[in-house]
């Protein structure tokens, strides 16, 4: 088939094909009712987030923060560790200064 013939074949086939396209513009009402349903869903989702999920989520986060920093009203472990390390350094320093003093004497 030559190029021009193929182009003509393509044009004719597509013109035939376009007859299969139904043009029912009355579907606006169907589409609009679908749109309103969709809008209702979006609105209820927003409401759920604003009045339901979001406050609950914030409460959960607050509760976790509280539990993290107030475990049995004890000092957090990392604070204890740092403190313990410092005590260790202090005691070692004291020990060596005592040794040095005794050597001098």
């Amino acid at each position, binding site marked *: 088939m030559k190029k021009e013939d193929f182009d003509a074949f393509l044009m004719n086939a597509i013109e035939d094909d376009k007859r299969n396209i139904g043009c029912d513009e009355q*579907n606006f009402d169907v589409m609009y009712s679908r*749109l309103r349903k969709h809008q209702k869903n979006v609105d209820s989702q927003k409401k759920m987030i604003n009045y339901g999920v979001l406050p609950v989520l914030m409460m959960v986060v607050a509760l976790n923060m509280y539990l993290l920093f107030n475990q049995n009203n004890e000092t957090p472990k990392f604070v204890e560790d740092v403190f313990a390390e410092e005590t260790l350094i202090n005691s070692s320093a004291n020990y060596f200064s005592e040794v040095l003093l005794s050597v001098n004497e």
Partner: protein
Amino acid sequence: MTQKYSEEEIIKALKNRDSEAFRYVYQKYYAKIKSVSYGVVHNNEDAEDIVQEVFIDLYDSLSRFKEQSSLSTWLYRIALNKSYNFLRSKKIRDIFTRLEERLSQHPDHNEDEDEKNRQLTDLHRAIEALPERQAKAFSLFFYEKMSQKEIAEIMQLNSITTVEQLIFRAKQNIRKMMKINED
């Protein structure tokens, strides 16, 4: 259509959720969008569904419409993307459907099939197998008879030459897939 709107008026009315303006846009663009969508998916019901989704999308995303392009260009762009996404998911589903069809097919099943219908089915399959940009340009050019300039704007391409090349390659690929030899 009860009222005529300018482009500015229509966008303003749509942003105010005016249902009459919405009806006006729907009636003005319904056939055009459906034609473009059909050009990609080749099924009347699927094209109808896509058109409805395009208008729901329009309603949803109007606040994000920056008015850098015309409303029609924007609508065509949404329609093309939705149609091609639909086609992509359909291709995956079709792998299984066609396999089932082949397994259940009688050997002389195609003999009585009308030649014209067979050619049209082959053409649909060839268009559906085209790469995305070629399929979109082909649909706009042949199904909606748009100019290359309009296609370049809708598809956000830099030049008309790119559109020409896409349509040329699409035709070549269709020819190859339909096994129509050159003389």
